[in-house]
């Protein structure tokens, strides 16, 4: 730096004072140096705290503000949205965010992001804090996966974050019932988990419901656990009377799934992502552990009023199956209505061995030959519900199972009441056929003849009396003849005594002859 006064000579020969300071560097240069240092430090700090930049795509930027919306995990700021731009095809928005330093590890393919805003769903209110603070982006980091920088944001927050201990299970059912995402999963009516998703299986028409059971309750799910829909209020009026099932208030409102393990700790703990059937209600879950069913067709000629689908099939009062279908068929050929009742028998209820169809056919035929029949019985007198009862009627009319139809036909016999009615009808019919008038006429004639006979018999009276008197006399004399003390008797006694003496002498003689056979010729020895 040079500053020189212009010119070399002053006016009037006065030596000029030249303001000139050279050499040392002015201390003022410390100022830009300090500025550089401070600015450099700030810049270095800002730069060193910069984490990776990521891109998250969302369907809508609702709640997103460039430069303001934070990315938080467990309420700790881990990033900041820097820009929000539309996708080129306008199908959504892309938020570019700057994460904090060292966040590389969390940013993996499985890491999910979602916008946290106030929500009322699944019986829970969430994100209320964002009413005041504004929305933020929630994050669920997954550590062990491939690193990623581009993410697709979730439209709804995940029910369960990956950091929560527990297990997922898959339930399959033919309809979703009242279960929705967020519905509670109950064990003995205590909430132990939540429904995570509920969707149609892409392969078939079943509904796949994913649930998450929190630790430590996830060990309660055993391989034999049964899940049922515990939604709302279930009321049923069946042969067993009125039945109402309810779960907790929450499950009444938003549905729920209950489970129980019939064998408790004996069964092995179910693995994560194990599949289970989801039954419609508790009853179904309890009953339906016989997966093997045999279908039969029954034809009843009587009214099936009171027989509903689901009515039990009992053998001597023990349920062994249920009615699955009741219909009516018109047979064009015979112009008759027939009522086919389809029943499902669960053989597992009465036998544990697996049998081949041949063996089954054999044993069923034998049983039917022994008199096994199906009949309708009143299950509930109050409601008039009918059940199908199986029993052995040894004196039933012979019948056979029809195996040729698609569903084998099982023989039936009429209801006891119906049988009585039928017999009575038959008797009345026969009575109606009797020739009562003719019988009356004949009877009248016979009675007249009888009367004449009787009148005639009146004349016989006196003679009869005479005869009787005579007979009486005869008997009296006979009586006198044999009366004790009568001469006849005395004589008879005497005669008998002599006969007795004679007999004794004869005995003596016989002895003599035996001892001395020669006495017959030489006479008695010793008596001489």
């Amino acid at each position, binding site marked *: 730096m040079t500053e020189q006064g212009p010119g070399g000579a002053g006016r009037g020969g006065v030596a000029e004072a030249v303001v000139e300071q050279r050499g040392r560097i002015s201390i003022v240069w410390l100022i830009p140096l300090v500025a550089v240092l401070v*600015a450099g430090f700030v810049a270095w700090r800002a730069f060193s705290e910069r984490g990776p930049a990521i891109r998250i795509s969302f369907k809508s930027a609702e709640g997103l503000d460039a430069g303001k919306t934070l990315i938080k995990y467990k309420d700790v700021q881990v990033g900041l949205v820097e820009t929000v731009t539309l996708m080129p095809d306008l199908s959504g928005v892309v938020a570019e965010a700057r994460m904090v330093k060292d966040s590389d590890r969390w940013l993996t393919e499985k890491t999910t992001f979602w916008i946290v805003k106030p929500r009322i769903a699944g019986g829970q209110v969430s994100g209320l804090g964002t009413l005041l603070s504004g929305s933020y982006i929630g994050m669920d980091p997954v550590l062990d996966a491939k690193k990623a920088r581009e993410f697709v944001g979730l439209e709804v927050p995940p029910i369960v974050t990956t950091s929560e201990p527990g297990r997922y299970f898959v339930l399959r059912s033919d309809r979703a019932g009242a279960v929705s995402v967020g519905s509670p999963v109950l064990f003995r009516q205590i909430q132990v988990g939540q429904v995570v998703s509920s969707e149609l299986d892409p392969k078939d028409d079943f509904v796949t419901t994913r649930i998450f059971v929190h630790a430590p309750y996830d060990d309660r799910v055993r391989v034999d656990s049964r899940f049922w829909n515990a939604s709302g209020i279930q009321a049923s009026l069946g042969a067993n009377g009125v039945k109402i099932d309810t779960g907790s208030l929450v499950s009444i409102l938003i549905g729920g799934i209950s489970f129980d393990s019939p064998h408790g700790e004996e069964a092995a703990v179910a693995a994560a992502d194990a599949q289970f059937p989801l039954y419609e209600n508790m009853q179904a879950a309890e009953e339906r552990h016989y997966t093997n069913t045999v279908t039969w067709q029954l034809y009843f000629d009587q009214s099936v009023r009171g027989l509903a689908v689901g009515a039990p099939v009992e053998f001597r009062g023990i349920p062994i199956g249920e009615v699955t279908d009741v219909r009516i068929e018109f047979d064009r050929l015979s112009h008759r209505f027939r009522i086919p009742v389809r029943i499902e028998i669960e053989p597992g209820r009465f036998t544990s061995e697996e049998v081949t169809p041949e063996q089954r056919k054999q044993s069923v035929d034998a049983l039917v030959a022994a008199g096994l029949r199906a009949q309708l019985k009143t299950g509930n007198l109050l409601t008039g519900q009918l059940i199908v009862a199986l029993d052995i009627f040894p004196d039933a009319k012979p019948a056979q199972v029809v195996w040729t139809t698609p569903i084998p036909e099982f023989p039936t016999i009429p209801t006891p009441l119906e049988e009585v009615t039928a017999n009575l009808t038959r008797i009345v019919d026969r009575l109606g056929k009797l020739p009562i008038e003719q019988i009356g006429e004949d009877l009248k004639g016979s009675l007249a003849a009888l009367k004449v006979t009787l009148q005639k018999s009146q004349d016989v009276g006196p003679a009869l009396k005479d005869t009787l008197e005579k007979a009486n006399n005869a008997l009296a004399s006979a009586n006198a003849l044999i009366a004790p003390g009568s001469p006849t008797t005395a004589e008879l006694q005497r005669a008998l005594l002599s006969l007795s003496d004679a007999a004794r002498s004869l005995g003596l003689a016989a002895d003599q002859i035996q001892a001395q056979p020669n006495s017959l010729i030489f006479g008695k020895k010793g008596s001489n």
Partner: protein
Amino acid sequence: MSAAAPATALAAGLANCHECGLLAQLRAAGHGARCPRCGAELHLRKPRSLERTWALVIAAAICYVPANVLPVMAVTSLGKTEADTIMSGVIYFLTSGDWPLAIIIFTASIFVPMMKLAILLFLLISVHRRSSWRPVDRTRMYRLTEAIGRWSMVDIYVVTIMVALVRLGNLATIEAGWGAVFFGAVVVITIFAAESFDPRLIWDESEARST
């Protein structure tokens, strides 16, 4: 022009004492001159004027970058924190319809500091190049720089007052950002830079040429 050349103190070797105003004849020895009356240091031109000005202008230019990049003020209102840089504040007021306010902030905080830096740079370069181009206008520019320099502090005042006033805990809190520090530094440093610049240097060249 030499005939019309006015007599200057520099040419006469005369210097005015800055403190007591005594006019003194400087001796040949350029430095170390003192006022015979009050003892203050006498010099014909501000010593090291250009060097100082350069240093300060460069420092101000360095500080100007973080002053605009970093947030000046962080407003936390109901749990929601918004950090604004100067420019984002201007854009905010502009988009929210307060364009007079936006113009004021823009002028005071962006336009004026930039203009000051530009003018000082221009003056420095022109003096270095011994330019004799329109000295009157250049002096006018210098005067303008000196006059408006302090008005840039409006921003800093606003920030400091707001920070002091708005302390409502979770409801609303305002905190000064690093940008404000750098911005304050820019304003102060440019004021010093303008101060350290000796406008007489503008004229020296034209004087020299005219002699």
